[in-house]
């Protein structure tokens, strides 16, 4: 019989937790003005509201600016190697479903070196929260273009401009059959908090792309989406069950044209039911939204897709339970299989 070596605990009462309980004593070492500060603040604000004891959180990261994140969270944390955080996190969650596991990654970490793990964690639907800080540049290696940089990006390794077409993280996630896919902006504090909360409550891999400004190597990449003057005409805020409208006075909308092509319309020129209505449970809707690219279209933010599918860790637990109920066998019995006796 196996010993029980695992300790049992009386857990912290989550209702007593405050933002400061999630702040470490380590100096934050991102560049002053980096968008990461805002994301860290929003995560720390959301944590106490989730009803989970602090000791049950594990933050796992890879390599890159954003991957320093776990050091600043007063929770359990693993700063792993480049691109591999989803794999490390899968090992944690698959063996310890009681833990709340968050993965912090960037555009290079998740989509270049870790592209394989990224798609596989999403298709498996491991119960993780996966935050991708997308600044469309390599920051920690000091300014090379990334797999999300636009074509023509002039950077240290592309003095004449990049010639490779970028990946759209939301499209990739939907292609991998992710069950929760959302996008937000580093400085949109309230919006980001709302998305993070939704992600935390999702059972399965919750993928959140966060547009994040790198003020050193790619400053202003998302200015149109964050600037007070321009954001309303460049951002399409998604709301489940609501028509897709944007603009200062929500005067514009998205409709479908011939060939199922989306088009921007003036709301005054169409009837209300010609506008597309956002449905988080519709795969086609999510895929279509993920292909709305600037400058022709506004950039959608919010929850693209939220559906339920059993998570990998749950299925694994169920298989173990089922196997146990079918068969009892000791290691000694296994060793004894096919035995014979001499003498």
């Amino acid at each position: 019989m196996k010993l029980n070596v695992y300790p049992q605990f009386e857990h912290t009462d989550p209702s007593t937790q405050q933002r400061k309980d999630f702040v470490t004593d380590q100096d934050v070492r991102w560049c002053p003005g980096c968008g990461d500060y805002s994301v860290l603040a929003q995560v720390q604000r959301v944590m106490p509201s989730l009803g989970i004891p602090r000791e049950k959180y594990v933050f796992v990261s890879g390599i890159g600016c954003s991957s320093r994140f776990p050091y600043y969270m007063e929770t359990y944390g693993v700063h792993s190697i480049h691109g591999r955080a989803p794999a490390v996190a899968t090992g944690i969650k698959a063996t310890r479903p009681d833990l709340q596991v968050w993965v912090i990654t960037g555009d290079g970490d998740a989509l270049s070196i870790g592209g394989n793990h990224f798609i596989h964690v999403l298709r498996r639907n491991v119960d993780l929260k996966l935050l991708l800080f997308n600044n469309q540049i390599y920051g920690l290696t000091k300014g090379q273009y990334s797999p999300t940089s636009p074509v023509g990006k002039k950077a240290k390794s592309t003095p004449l401009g990049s010639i490779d077409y970028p990946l759209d993280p939301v499209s990739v996630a939907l292609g991998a059959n992710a069950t929760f896919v959302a996008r937000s902006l580093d400085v949109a504090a309230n919006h980001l908090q709302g998305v993070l909360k939704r992600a935390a409550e999702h059972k399965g891999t919750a993928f959140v792309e966060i547009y994040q400004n790198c003020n050193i190597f790619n400053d202003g990449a998302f200015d149109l989406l964050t600037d007070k003057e321009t954001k309303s005409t460049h951002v399409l805020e998604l709301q489940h069950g609501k028509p897709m409208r944007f603009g200062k006075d929500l005067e514009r909308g998205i409709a479908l044209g011939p060939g199922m092509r989306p088009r921007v319309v003036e709301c005054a020129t169409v009837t209300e039911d010609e506008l597309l209505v956002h449905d988080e449970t519709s795969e086609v809707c999510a895929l279509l939204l993920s292909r709305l690219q600037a400058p022709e279209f506004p950039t959608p933010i919010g929850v693209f897709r939220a559906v339920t599918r059993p998570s990998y860790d749950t299925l694994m637990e169920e298989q173990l339970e089922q196997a146990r109920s079918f068969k009892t066998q000791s290691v000694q019995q296994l060793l004894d299989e096919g035995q014979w006796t001499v003498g």
Partner: protein
Amino acid sequence: MQKAVETVQTVAIRFAGDSGDGMQVTGTQFSDTTALAGNDLATFPDFPAEIRAPAGSLAGVSGFQIKFSSEEVFTPGDAPDVLVAMNPAALLANLHDLKAGGMLILNSEAFNAKNIERAGYATSPLADGSLSGFKVYSADITGMTLRAVEELKLNQRFAVRCKNFFALGMVYWLYNRDTAHTVKWIEEKFRDPQLREANLRALKAGYAFGETTELFDHSYEIKQAKIKPGRYRNISGNEAISLGFLAASELSGLNLFLGSYPITPASDILHNLARYKHLGVRTFQAEDEIAAICSAIGAAYAGSLALTTTSGPGLALKSEGMGLALMLELPLVIVDVQRAGPSTGMPTKTEQSDLLQVMYGRNGEAPIPVIAASTPGDCFYAAIEACRVAVMHMTPVVLLSNGYIANGAEPWPIPDMSKLPRIPVSFRTEREGYQPYSRDERLARPWALPGTPGLEHRIGGIEKQHLTGNISYDPANHEFMSKLRHERVQKIADELPPLEVHGDPSGELLVLGWGDTFGAIRAGVETARQQGHSVGHLHLRWLNPFPNDLGDILKRYKRVLVPELNLGQLVKMIRARYLVDARSFPKIQGQPFKESEIVLAIKQQLEAN
């Protein structure tokens, strides 16, 4: 009339046919039955990487050799006494190994013009006199099999496939083996009643043919070996390693997790452990080798007894993950079932050429303990020991096996779980004074599981400050930590039992080996000693750290010979560490050592000067 029975001491048989002919099944069945008959034995399955190479081609030849005896057996035998060849290609690929005057059992039906040409023969070897140096027994195995199953009206393709059991039946008669074990196996294995009946009929027909044919005028008997009383079973290295991990899980109380990506010849460990979900084993078939080790690191961090299994090319991909496990100081066992390299190399062929890779194949100063199993059955104990060291010293450990012992099988005394020592585990729960990188007497850091209130901490691959584990770029701290990580591995040697030399404890020559060469070296050293030479055999289990008494033992001999299935890897480490003039005896053909090769190398060493 009853045929005569001749008693012989030792026989080696090789079964050879197309990779779809069922030669591995035939060999395994013969091995199991032979073990039940009380002989000692060793086996060597040797098959191509192609699942179904074109029928009748040389590329598709699959073989299985078994040596069995009334005496102790260390190797599957150098040259077989008997070759069963199911077609011309199998004959051509294996005949050069058969002993002069050896017995050749051929399936005459397969020696048609097409197959003869496909194998590359200019003329039929059955007719051109090229087999005159052997005792040839040519029988229409296919035809007789078809007649035996005729009544069942099977599809021709399925009927022909039963011929391996006909051949097995013949050989069972020839060596006076009981068919009962194989009958039972067929009854359990084949769900389709027609196929079950067909294979049973083929087996019986083969046996009856042996009895009645004028081809064989007598049969052979091998008396039971003088085996220590006890309970035995047959075991292959991959089975033993899997069971060893299950045992380690029970002995430690830790949940077992395996993160793995399929690769020859290690995949069977994943297949085996995936069948033990009822014992709480979690297996994760990852998207690649890197995810496999990283998931295991995550599982170790979260409190499992974590494993990853692979072979050479996969190990190369895991290098960075191994470095991370070393920096995180988490228990993790990395199994490398070595195969012939480099690159893809020869996936189904054996080699010992990853030693330097596991020793030095990482960035930075990255010492990881390395243990090597020496026989199929030893894989069980090596797996437990790897887990014990990993957990007690909080370190990744590499466990080396290879294709030869992973797939080879031997009769094995079954261990009694209640007599194996427990693996002590303690998780840190005390908040007072907790520091993630504080040290115990083994220089191990505390294992503090996520979920433990008050012990929230961060770890990572960045260099860390002694004790606190905080990020540190301090030059003196880095040197201190680098030396400490080295010392942590050396500490393991303090708990190792004294080395045991077999044969002469000092004298002319020490043969120093590691891993799967154990059987060939032991047999070779025994033979040399019987011929009056002063030779000792020392077989290393731990390759990192080297045992503390190794240096003294090396100095007790005038010469040291290191046979390895590589171009001389351990010998480099020995020369560098102990400054002794150890000589390499390399072999790199994808095949294990033969006993005769070891004997010859010993004599050449002794005659040198």
